[in-house]
């Protein structure tokens, strides 16, 4: 299979990135070590290539109504310059993708979708649009190949972003500098004579930003960020640290916590399912689950014995029986302890509950803990 490469591929090679296959893409897993990059983001600042992620623009007088009928969160809550986490579900409630939706203009939305889900998402959106009564008032454009992005994450990033984009915003939320953006706000800034989008969001649990640019501009943003980033201890960070960071704060990753046979309620992200907004795809099943419960529940756990790190697909035991499976697991660099998430029947999903994780034929004790497993300093 030919692996896809982002516009930052040669930048990763120059930075000494170790490249691996991820969802059909050749991406850096690490530059120094996962632990080093992870702690750098928790303490200072890290920059990640997220250009493999997909971008879809939805425009038109009925764009809001279409998205509200297709996504789980209430998109009417978005003022121009604001974004929200949301999900796209089947009628049976299974998750097609989890995504961020930003309102860029009165009738213009930007969807940031998972790299591995671009094709199924676009096919699903097109199919739903074809069945949407006001379809003539909505256009859907997949700009994934024309668009690139970096995530700049960590407590020191606001000062760095102000140097990277040192003028007031030209669109979206009006701010005089990026650090004035509040969580989930998005704004446009000028960079090298072109327009970039900066959103205050991320996938690390830390303060941070995502910068979305034309594909041809991203290398200049990356290089400039690294150049200005020295006083902020900015380091390039790979997918390895991205995964350990999000696991510590229990953010779901599609293909692990989420898939087409798992609902947002089971995955513990029911907060982003706005039943009160009216009809949307999957609502009937999700309403039943919110009221009556689910067959499985996502739990977070910490190893309590000295144990090898838990990994995806390891079995979960409780009361002497196999009750579920780990979906994400690692050695937490912040806690220096094995941590993970997994699905179990609801009767076992109790905070403080004792479980065991089977690792190479032996069972090691673990405790179900409240999410997030690790809480970053405010």
């Amino acid at each position: 299979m030919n692996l896809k490469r982002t516009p930052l591929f040669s930048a990763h090679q120059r930075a000494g990135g170790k490249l691996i296959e991820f969802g059909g893409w050749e991406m850096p897993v690490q530059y120094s070590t996962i632990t080093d990059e992870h702690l750098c983001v928790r303490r200072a600042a890290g920059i990640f290539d997220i250009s493999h992620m997909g971008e879809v623009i939805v425009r038109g007088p009925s764009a809001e109504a279409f998205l509200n009928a297709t996504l789980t969160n209430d998109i009417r809550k978005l003022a121009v310059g604001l974004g929200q986490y949301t999900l796209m579900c089947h009628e049976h409630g299974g998750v097609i993708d989890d995504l961020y939706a930003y309102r860029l203009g009165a009738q213009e939305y930007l969807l940031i979708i998972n790299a591995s889900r671009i094709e199924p998402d676009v096919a699903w959106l097109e199919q739903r649009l074809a069945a949407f009564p006001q379809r003539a008032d909505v256009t859907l454009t997949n700009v994934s190949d024309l668009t690139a992005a970096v995530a700049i994450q960590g407590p020191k990033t606001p000062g760095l972003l102000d140097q990277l984009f040192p003028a007031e915003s030209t669109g979206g939320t009006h701010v005089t500098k990026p650090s004035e953006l509040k969580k989930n706000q998005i704004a446009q800034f000028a960079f090298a004579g072109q327009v970039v989008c900066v959103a205050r969001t991320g996938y690390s649990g830390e303060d941070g930003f995502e910068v979305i640019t034309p594909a041809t501009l991203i290398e200049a943003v990356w290089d400039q960020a690294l150049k200005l980033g020295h006083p902020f201890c900015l380091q390039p960070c790979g997918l390895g640290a991205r995964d350990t960071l999000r696991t510590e704060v229990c953010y779901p990753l599609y293909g692990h916590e989420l898939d087409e046979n798992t609902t947002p309620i089971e995955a513990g992200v029911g907060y982003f399912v706005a039943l009160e907004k009216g009809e949307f795809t999957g609502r009937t099943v999700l309403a039943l689950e919110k009221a009556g419960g689910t067959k499985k529940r996502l739990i977070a756990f910490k190893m309590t014995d000295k144990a090898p790190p838990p990994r995806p697909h390891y079995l979960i035991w409780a009361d002497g029986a196999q009750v579920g499976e780990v979906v994400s697991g690692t050695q937490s660099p912040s806690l220096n302890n094995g941590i993970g998430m997994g699905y179990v029947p609801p009767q076992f999903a109790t905070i403080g509950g004792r479980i065991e994780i089977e690792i190479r034929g032996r069972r090691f004790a673990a405790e179900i803990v409240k999410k997030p497993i690790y809480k970053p300093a405010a």
Partner: protein
Amino acid sequence: MNTQVPADLKYAKSHEWLRVAGDVAAVGITDHAQHELTDVVFVELPAVGRKVKVGEACAVVESVKTASDIYAPVSGEVVEVNKAVSDNPALVNTEPYAGGWFFKLKVANAAEAGALLSPDAYKAQIGG
């Protein structure tokens, strides 16, 4: 990358080293291997008394990212394991040829050690 390949050791293609002293040999993983793994966070050692065959998976080393098997470079009986590396797995990264050793074998067949790679052959394998 300045990878260490000590001249007094024998090497397996699967990146273990063997230090022979009489009929007992210590086993660990190479500097190159620990560089590739990075961040060793767990080491699982064989039981003392276990008899292993050459090429048999008999220990596990885990980094943040993955678990990797360690193979016996020669056949023999496990006579000692390194408790220090089990308590402090980072020794595999910091001292791969000293404090980071895994276990010692009573060598069953000295000819197997002779069939392992020389330092130069191992350097050639890793492109050093």
